[in-house]
């Protein structure tokens, strides 16, 4: 039997507001437990939520970025359940009237195919706190659980897709596209390691050609692109084996364990909570007028898909370079600055994609942490373009800049004497020296069949470049050597 996989994602994006969604407490990551939770976040009696307008603006920006309908009126609901790290006994969320309605997102797959994934809706909600299950004991030495409410009230945008993805690769491409768009918009730092982005994955399988959906399972809280692929791969295989062995998939919530690379059951539908949603009486409906939405639309930055198309169509980058560079706003900004300085899109793309990316990867750095600024790289590329240095010397300059040996390419070129020699007289003198010192090689060259001589010239070029410590213009060297050697034949 041929099986088809059906995947839908619920992505939780932490919005980059300075304060929480319903209080003035800070959202900064990494503070001492419970130092960033005010009376409202602690759910103290009598306290009331006040909506952070920045969170609303960010949700609208996301909606506009995925061509979604923005709700004129959205409403916060209470989702009631008990848990120790849920201070009020309910989570304030948007169940019935979310702020962002149906939209869509283009994802690019490895084989350069573009696919449209529909977004069902996106809604605002508050995060809960965190239970710390380790290293707490009471007076009698009994194990206890600590609660850190620093996260409580952190604004989240939950983006719910339609079940439009058909493979683990598509799911991870979708997640990357979400990551790309929210970081472009600047509405999230997208830091998955710190929990700024995580997702719940709904997976089912069905015989190819069948319309009806199979029974799905939900894998909770997956927090990396790689884990999403692994979790889905494991789950798909598990479900297919189960069905092929005559069993049935049970609708349930599962957890992915990266250590063992498998999913396991957390709770079944029978144990599912009744959340008793109802509109939160402490918050007014969020009413947005068209002028406000238009204002935010006008302020939207160029988004990844538009940027990719422009890089490809107007700058002539390869489809691959364009999509890789455009995927990250920081990378794209860096590229565009370097390009502006050197005036050559293709060279800028080559350097950013080649030397720079390799160095960043080696040192585990983000492009924003690069020791070489975009301006510095642009100037360096410019020096290759105007023949001041050779491509080989440029790599030395790059390394020197990376190591902080100088403020600019020019400074390093000067200090290291890397300026390319293009003076014909000087090059001729070096060539003459090399020819004089290599009688054996010259003889071989002269005696060789004419069609073999091309290969043999490499030796002489190497000797001249060595003698010039790499500063001689290689094209010139090549050309003059050929002329001089051929004259000896």
């Amino acid at each position, binding site marked *: 039997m041929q099986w088809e996989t059906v995947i839908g994602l619920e992505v939780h994006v932490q919005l980059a507001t300075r304060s929480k969604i319903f209080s003035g407490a800070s959202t900064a990551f990494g503070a001492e437990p419970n130092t960033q939770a005010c*009376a409202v976040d*602690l759910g103290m*009696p*009598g306290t009331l939520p006040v909506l952070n307008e920045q969170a609303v603006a960010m949700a609208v920006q996301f909606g506009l970025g995925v061509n979604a309908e923005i709700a004129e009126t959205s409403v916060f609901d209470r989702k*009631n359940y008990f848990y120790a790290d849920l201070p009020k006994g*309910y989570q304030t969320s948007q169940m019935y009237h979310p702020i962002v309605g149906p939209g869509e997102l283009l994802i690019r797959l490895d084989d350069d195919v573009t696919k449209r994934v529909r977004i069902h809706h996106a809604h605002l909600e508050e995060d809960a706190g965190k239970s710390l299950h380790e290293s707490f004991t009471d007076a009698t030495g009994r194990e206890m659980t600590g609660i850190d409410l620093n996260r409580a009230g952190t604004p989240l945008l939950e983006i719910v897709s339609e079940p439009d993805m058909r493979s683990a690769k598509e799911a991870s491409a979708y997640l990357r596209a979400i990551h790309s768009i929210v970081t472009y918009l600047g509405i999230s730092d997208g830091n998955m390691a710190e929990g700024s982005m995580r997702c719940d994955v709904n997976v089912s399988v069905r015989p190819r050609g069948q319309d009806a959906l199979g029974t799905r399972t939900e894998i909770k809280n997956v927090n990396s692109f790689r884990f999403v692929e692994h979790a889905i791969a494991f789950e798909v295989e598990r479900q297919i084996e189960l069905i092929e062995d005559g069993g049935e998939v049970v609708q349930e919530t599962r957890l992915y364990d990266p250590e063992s690379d498998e999913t396991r059951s957390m709770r079944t539908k029978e144990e599912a909570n009744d959340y008793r*949603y*109802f509109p939160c*009486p*402490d918050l007014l409906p969020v009413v947005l007028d068209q002028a406000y939405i238009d204002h935010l639309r006008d302020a939207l930055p160029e988004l990844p898909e538009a940027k990719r198309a422009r890089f490809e169509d107007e700058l002539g980058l390869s489809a691959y370079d364009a999509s890789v560079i455009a995927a990250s706003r920081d990378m794209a900004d860096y590229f565009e600055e370097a390009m502006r300085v050197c005036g050559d899109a293709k060279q800028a793309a080559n350097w950013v994609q080649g030397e720079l990316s390799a160095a960043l990867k080696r040192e585990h750095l983000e492009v924003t942490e690069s020791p070489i600024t975009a301006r510095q790289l642009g100037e360096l590329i410019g020096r290759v373009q105007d023949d001041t240095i050779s491509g080989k010397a440029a790599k030395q300059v790059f390394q020197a800049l990376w190591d902080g040996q100088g403020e600019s390419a020019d400074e390093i070129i000067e200090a290291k004497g890397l300026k390319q020699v293009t003076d014909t007289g000087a090059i001729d003198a070096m060539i003459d020296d090399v020819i004089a010192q290599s009688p054996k090689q010259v003889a071989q060259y002269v005696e060789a069949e004419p069609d073999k001589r091309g290969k043999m010239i490499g030796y002489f070029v190497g000797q001249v470049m060595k003698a010039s410590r790499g500063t001689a213009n290689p094209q010139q060297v090549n050309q003059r050597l050929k002329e001089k050697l051929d004259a000896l034949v």
Partner: protein
Amino acid sequence: MSDHTADATFDHTVTSLAAALQNGDASSRELTTDYLKRIERAEPTLNSFISVTAEQALAAADDADQARADGCAGFLTGVPISLKDIFCTQGVKTTCGSKMLDNFIAPYNATVVDKLAAAGCISLGKTNMDEFAMGSSNETSYYGAVKNPWDSAAVPGGSSGGSAAAVAAGLTPASMGSDTGGSIRQPAAFCGVTGLKPTYGRVSRYGIIAYASSLDQAGPMARTAEDCAHLLGAIAGHDLRDSTSATRGVPDYAAELDAPLAGLKIGLPREYFGDGLDPAVASAVREAVKVYESLGATVRDVSLPHTRYATSAYYVIAPAEASSNLARFDGVRFGHRCEHPEDLIDLYQRSRAEGFGEEVKRRILIGTHTLSEGFFDAYYTKAQKVRRLIRQDFLDAFDQVDVLMGPTSPTPAFDLGAQKDPVSMYLQDIYTIAVNLAGIPGISVPAGMVDGRPVGLQILGSHFAEARLLNVAHRFQQTTDWHQQRPAFAKEIA
């Protein structure tokens, strides 16, 4: 006010105390001391306070006297008041009448508390109340029932019964209450004082321990409408910490008090004079209406056809919100925690089982049920539809008349322990509940006596018509003396 006149403290209003302070006839310390002494004498009988904050009160009184000496006193500077124990007060126990919060000291003030302090009022302490404001008789308080100063066999009404009793007995010239389904007006009626429930959103709810968020509203309880006008002026206004508080400006409520009533159109809702209304109460109310006619008002009958559904809708919506609002009392962060919990579920179950009283548990269970999957539309959604119809009834009525009048409660104060069945207790609020569902303001003023127990006249106005209501109530109090009647108990403890 020197010692020989201290005995008469109980007969003062906020307005007359403010005048005495202004004229230098009394200091805030003297007044505060007098009231504290009266509280001490009355409490063994009355039980109207949960906490008396004598030290803080005297210190604040000294500050007020100093402010007055420095020439920076306002109208209310130095006037003692008290607060229902539902208002969070920084550094002072705030129990909400529950064992659950017996150990709770809020690290912040309710906005109402801050505003009263900013106006210079002195808080004598926190008054007794039905647990989490759930009750119509003050019998559900963890701290025991309050006695009605007019008759110690009678209840003071609920849930702001401690405030009403304390004002009636002269233990405090005024008190802040809260009203979710009649909790200011009904005890005001039972104790013969004046109580105003403002428009929903007129006063910030920040720091008021929530019962039913879409219905709760704080308001003043005092001896006269004039006092209520001064106090409302101090506590009303938008609060950045409460998004549901109204953003409109606060009028000078005292300025409109004396406006003439000629031409006032009064509507008498047919539904407020039907079955279940004590005939003696009905006749007291009709007498009061005649007073208004003598002042130039005209009267007509009106209909509020959906009134009959008000109690049912209320007992769906209020418990639904309460079940959610009270979920935070879980023994984890504050309030009562059971001893030696086995695990998290045990911690929740025993903390809540031990901390909450019977009526609170009953309403949490009702609310949890009506919000449950499969019941939500049948109950909650339907009740919200009824609520809109009730609100529309009032809007239609106010197209025809300026104010509505009727009884505050179908009977005078009943005896302690008399209402055994929860549903019959719920029907005590039959004339007050619809007002909260509609969000309009209402005031109860003393308007007669039946068998030695006071009767309240309820006056209702359209949204934000508090100035008009206070004016209408004030003119009545200038013409009648029901509000000046004092229980014998107030004199006994002099």
